[in-house]
């Protein structure tokens, strides 16, 4: 069954203030979908990690595409993060807890994956990275 898109929005990510704004936008979308507090917090946190990754690892700027959609009896929120940064050479390595190239804790990518229902990542070194996450209700 093809998902029906209810609402969508494009959020530019160019600074840590943009990431802060993104968190608030994601929270509002999650509330509108009637996610529980825990479900809201998980997707907001995942979005925060991935938004930060765009700034720190994605060449400093990128875009988040938000979509709420309905598929059969369930509704969901999907967020796609795109950047034209250096890309990830070894995705499995990047997903491993503790691995970091930015002096962080190395929990952002793997952590975000654990907090959502759907997680997809594509990256071409030298061209960019795309990460798509989704949580269902």
């Amino acid at each position, binding site marked *: 069954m093809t998902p029906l898109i209810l609402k969508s929005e494009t959020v530019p990510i160019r*600074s840590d203030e943009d990431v802060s704004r993104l*968190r608030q936008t994601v929270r509002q979308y999650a509330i509108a979908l009637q996610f529980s507090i*825990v479900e809201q917090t*998980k997707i907001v946190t995942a979005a925060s990690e991935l938004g930060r990754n765009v700034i720190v690892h994605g060449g400093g700027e990128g875009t988040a595409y938000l979509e709420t959609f309905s598929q059969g009896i369930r509704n969901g929120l999907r967020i796609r993060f795109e950047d034209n940064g250096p890309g990830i050479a070894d995705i499995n390595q990047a997903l491993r807890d503790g691995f970091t190239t930015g002096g*962080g804790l190395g929990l952002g990518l793997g952590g975000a994956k654990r907090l959502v229902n759907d997680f997809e990542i594509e990256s071409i070194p030298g061209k960019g990275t795309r990460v798509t996450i989704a949580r269902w209700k």
Partner: protein
Amino acid sequence: MDRIPILQMGEYLLVTIQVDMHDRLALTLQDDLTNRIVETGARGLLIDISSLSMVDSFIGRMLSNISSMARVLDAETVVVGMQPAVAITLVELGLYLPAVRTALNVEKGMAYLQERLMEKSPMESDSADTEE
């Protein structure tokens, strides 16, 4: 740039984080707290996060860094008021924050700090009497 206010109460510093912090603000807080501990000689630091509806790995690391830096400067830190959804999410994120002492609320947090300070004081007066 906006700053998060730090209150002093005797030997303690109190911080209440009520806004969604962008990363630079979090780093500024880290610096401000470290400077204030040195300036005031504070022995205890209480960070109230009861208004935070989200703590991600960056903020988690900030709390951990503050705890460690305070300890190096002979001050104890306690983080209070973590919301349940935040606690659940942090654990699933893989962030256990072993170095960060927590308490349920400001009252319990202060009681903990006072206890720790009292534990430390007897040792300091003992060591002056020890001859080895």
